[in-house]
């Protein structure tokens, strides 16, 4: 340890050269755990809505609990997808400018589409 070029502060913070530490890994696990019950709820809900028309879907989504769970599911799922696709891009895309472009688009795609989904739920909740 005495011969290490790393400073004591660097070792204590444990953030590494990317200054991010285990944050990405941890958030991927945290969202994964949250998605286990949320996914079962999501599939059960969709199964119960098979054949429903727009008004029945709107009525169902107007309940605070389904709306809350749907927003939690969407937010967690899109965040989890953003984290996962980021690793896939980093692993397989080696041309620097292509990689950076795809990483930016990954963020834009997940935030924009996730935002549109959550907004739709809110519109239905508040009397769409």
């Amino acid at each position, binding site marked *: 340890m005495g011969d290490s070029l790393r400073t004591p502060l660097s070792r204590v913070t444990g953030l590494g050269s990317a200054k991010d530490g285990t944050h990405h890994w941890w958030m991927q696990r945290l969202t994964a755990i949250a998605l286990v019950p949320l996914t079962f709820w999501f599939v059960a809900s969709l199964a119960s809505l098979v054949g429903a028309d727009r*008004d029945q879907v709107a009525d169902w989504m107007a309940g605070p609990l389904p709306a809350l769970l749907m927003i939690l599911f969407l937010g967690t799922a899109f965040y989890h*997808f953003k984290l996962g*696709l980021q690793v*896939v891009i980093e692993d397989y895309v080696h041309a620097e400018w292509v990689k950076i472009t795809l990483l930016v688009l990954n963020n834009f795609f997940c935030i924009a*589409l996730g935002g549109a989904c959550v907004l739709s739920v809110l519109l239905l909740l508040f009397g769409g």
Partner: protein
Amino acid sequence: MATQDRPLSPHLQVYRPQITSMLSILHRITGVGLGAGTLLIAWWLIAAATGPEAFDTAQAFIGSLIGRLILLGFTWALFYHLCNGIRHLVWDAGYGYDLDSVTRTGWLVVVASLVLTALAWIAGYGMRGL
């Protein structure tokens, strides 16, 4: 860049396909596929918020043969990724690394994903009948 054309190692194609490696890459493939599938969910939600005509259009596509096939694939990919994700979480906790366990839990995940997919679709079609 000088490093661009270096040969890549390992040469994956010389290895015999095994349950471990196949399920590992399948986890990534289903993950990316599910991300693409969110477009369908987004369409359905946005259409519901837009109005009856938009919702009928989305519903007509989802109810078509191609729509149902995509939804079936999405359901299985979702349950596979969910079950194999739980397998990963167990590994993260430090359990199930020996070869017997890895093989057993691998096949368990495959069977569980198929059973859960079947249950979800039976439930869905049951609702339709009511």
